[in-house]
C-alpha cells in the first residue's frame, strides 16, 4: 500500500505572546513545530505500515526551505521519503491555492492509496485544505477521523461529531483527516534520527509540478486579507480586596446590583 501524509510546519501558537504595550505579536523564541494534528496523521500512516509490510509512507509539505527540518523529524519517526514544495510563487496562498499546489505534488508523486492529513493547522485553524485537496484529486474524503480499521481495501472509520460519532465506510483511494483522539504519535527513535539524515528530501518548485505561477500562491487565491490586527484587549476591571468574606460579599452585591443573578 502507498500512503502520503500531508503535513505543515507551524509556529507553536501556544508559545506566542502579545506585547502588552505595542499590541503586536512577540515571535522571538517561538519554535516551529510539526502541526499537532499532522503528527496524528503520520502516526496513523506508520501504524498501517507496521501492520502491513511493504507499505510505503511518504510525507509532503508546502513551505519555505526551513520546513525541511520538520520533514527530517517525520523521517526520524519512520516515514520513508519526504517531499517539499517550495518556491517564492507559492507564498501568500490561501487554502484554495494551497490545495492546488499540493494536488500537483501528489500527481507528480504518482498518487496514493490513502492520503492522510491533520484536521487543521494551529496557525490558521481552517480545516479546509484536506477536503479541498480531495476535491481536486477527485477522491472521497472523510474529515475528523478518530478511529480507523482497514480490511481488504475497505476502510471503516469513526468520524467525530459534536455529540458522538458516525461509523463510515470508504474505499481507497481516499483522503482522511485526523483528530488528536485517533492515536498518540510516536517519538523519534535514535536509529530513526540517524537514518533520517541518510534519506533524501526531494524539493520541487512550480516547474517541477507543472504549475504556472498564475495557478499558485497569492495569484491563485480567491480570498485576500484586507487587514489583520491584534484583538483589542478588554479593559481591566475591578480587583476586589479584603477578607474572603468581604470579597465574596462584595461580588454577590455587585452582581445583584446589575440584576445578573
Amino acid at each position, binding site marked *: 500500500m502507498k500512503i502520503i501524509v500531508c503535513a505543515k510546519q507551524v*509556529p507553536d*501558537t501556544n508559545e*506566542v505572546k502579545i506585547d502588552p504595550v505595542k499590541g*503586536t*505579536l*512577540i*515571535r522571538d523564541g517561538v519554535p516551529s513545530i510539526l502541526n499537532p494534528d499532522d503528527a496524528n496523521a503520520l502516526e496513523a500512516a506508520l501504524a498501517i505500515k507496521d501492520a502491513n509490510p511493504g507499505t510505503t509512507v511518504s510525507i509532503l509539505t508546502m513551505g*519555505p526551505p526551513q520546513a525541511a527540518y520538520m520533514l527530517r523529524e517525520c523521517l526520524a519517526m519512520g516515514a520513508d521519503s519526504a517531499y517539499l514544495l*517550495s*518556491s*517564492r*510563487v507559492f*507564498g*501568500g*496562498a490561501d*487554502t*484554495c491555492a494551497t*490545495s492546488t499546489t499540493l494536488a500537483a505534488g501528489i500527481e507528480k508523486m504518482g498518487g496514493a492509496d490513502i492520503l492522510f492529513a491533520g484536521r487543521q493547522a494551529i*496557525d490558521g*485553524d*481552517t480545516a*479546509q485544505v484536506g*477536503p*479541498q485537496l480531495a*476535491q481536486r484529486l477527485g477522491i*472521497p*474524503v*472523510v474529515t*475528523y477521523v478518530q478511529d480507523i480499521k482497514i480490511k481488504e481495501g475497505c476502510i471503516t472509520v469513526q468520524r467525530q*461529531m459534536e*455529540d*458522538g*460519532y*458516525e*461509523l*463510515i*465506510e*470508504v474505499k481507497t483511494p*481516499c483522503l482522511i483527516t485526523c483528530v488528536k483522539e485517533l492515536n498518540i504519535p510516536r517519538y523519534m527513535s535514535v536509529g530513526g534520527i540517524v537514518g533520517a539524515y541518510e534519506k533524501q528530501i526531494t524539493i520541487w518548485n512550480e516547474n517541477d509540478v507543472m504549475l504556472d505561477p498564475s495557478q499558485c500562491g*497569492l495569484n491563485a*487565491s*480567491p*480570498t*485576500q*486579507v484586507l*487587514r*489583520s*490586527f491584534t*484583538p483589542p484587549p*478588554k479593559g481591566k*476591571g*475591578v480587583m476586589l480586596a479584603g477578607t*474572603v468574606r468581604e*470579597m*465574596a460579599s462584595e461580588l*454577590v452585591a455587585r*452582581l445583584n446590583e*446589575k440584576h*445578573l*443573578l
Partner: protein
Amino acid sequence: MAVIIHSKLCKGCKVCVKSCPFGAITVENKVAEISAACTGCNACLEDVCPFHAIEKIEDEKHGVDIHEYHGVWVFAEQRQGKLMDVAIELMGEGRRIADMINTELSAVLCGENVEGLADDLIAFGADIVYIFDAPELKSYTTDAYTKVIYEAIMKYKPEIVLLGATHIGRDLGPCLAVKCGTGLTADCTRLEVDPEDKKLMQTRPAFGGNLMATIICPNHRPQMSTVRPGVMSKPVRDDDRLGEKICVPVSIPSIELRTKILDIVHSAKELVRLTDAEIIVSGGRGLGRQEGFGLLSEFAEKLSGVIGASRAAVDSGWIDHAHQIGQTGTTVKPKIYFACGISGAIQHLAGMQEADYIVAINKNELAPIFEVADYGIVGDLYKIIPVIMEELDRQQGYRGKGMDGF
C-alpha cells in the same frame, strides 16, 4: 508577487522583522527580504516601515462576473430532523446582511421529510427556502450534499453563502468552495458589508486567537463563510412572515456516493449546552484535581449555570472535551462567566471574552485572566467559592433562577 520590499528605500532597520506573525521577513546585507512564508496578511504594511519600503502589489486577477450573483444563502443544517442552533443564528445574521445589500435571504434545507422545517426558517427570516428532499440526504454525506448544493449554486448564483462552522459545515464548505472555484473563510466571528462596494468583510481569529484577520473575496462568487456557533444572536421568531418554498428536484446516482454511513452513535453524555448558557462556571489547571469540578458543579447548580473548562483541565483528564471553551472548543457569550483557576491563555480568552461580565478567581495575581475580568479575586478558589455560595443564600435567599421562574 504580493508584498514586496523596495530595496532602495530599505535601511535594514529590522522594524518589519518583528511585525511579521509568520517570520517571513529576514534582513540580509542590510536589506529586508520576504520569503515564501508570507501569507499576505498585511501586518507589516500599516505604518510599520518608517521608510515606506514595504508595498503590497495587487495582481490582475481573473474572477467571475460578480454582477451575475444575487442573494444571500444560509445552509440550514439539520440533524435528525431538527435545525441546528447555528442555522437559526445564521438566519438572523443572513437577514441583517441581506437587508444591508438590499437582496433576498434564502435558506438551503437538505434532508428527508424536512419540509416542516421550512416554515420555521421563514419565521426566522427566510424569503425563500430551497428544499432538497431525498432519502440520500437524510444524514449528511460529503458527496451527496456537495453535489446537490453545488448544482443549485451554479443554477441560482447566490452572491453570499453562509454555513455554520460545525463538523458538517467545515466539511461541506471547503468542498463546495473548490467546486465553485471560489474562496471560503473559516470560523468567522464577525461579518460586515463594505458600505462602498457592498462586499462581504469576514473577520476571523487566526494564529490561535492571537491575531484577527478581515478577509475579502473580491473577484470570485459566491463569497463563502463558515461562522462559529454561538457567536451570532438568534433572531426573534415571527410566525406572520411570508416566504416562498421551492422544492428542488434531486437526483443522486449511487455511484457518486463514495462513502457509506454504517451507524450514527450518540455519546451517552448530553450535548453540553454551553452556547445558550447565561451563566458559566469554568475551571482550569488551578483546580489542581478532578474533584474541583465537584465544587464547581455545586456552584453552577446554585446559579442554574453550566460547567465549562479550559483546555488544560480537559487535557488533564478531569473533564470531557465537550465542556472545553476556547479556540479549539466552544465559543460562549454568557451573561456571567466565572473563570476559576484559569490563567487565561489567549486561546481560552478567544472563546469567552465576549461574556457580558467576567469574574476571575485565581491564586496568581499576575494571571492574564485578570486583564479581561470585570471582577477579580486573588486567592484560593476552594476557600472563596463556598463563601460566595453562602453569600448568595444570605443576600437574597438565592434559590437559583430556574426555580423562581425569572
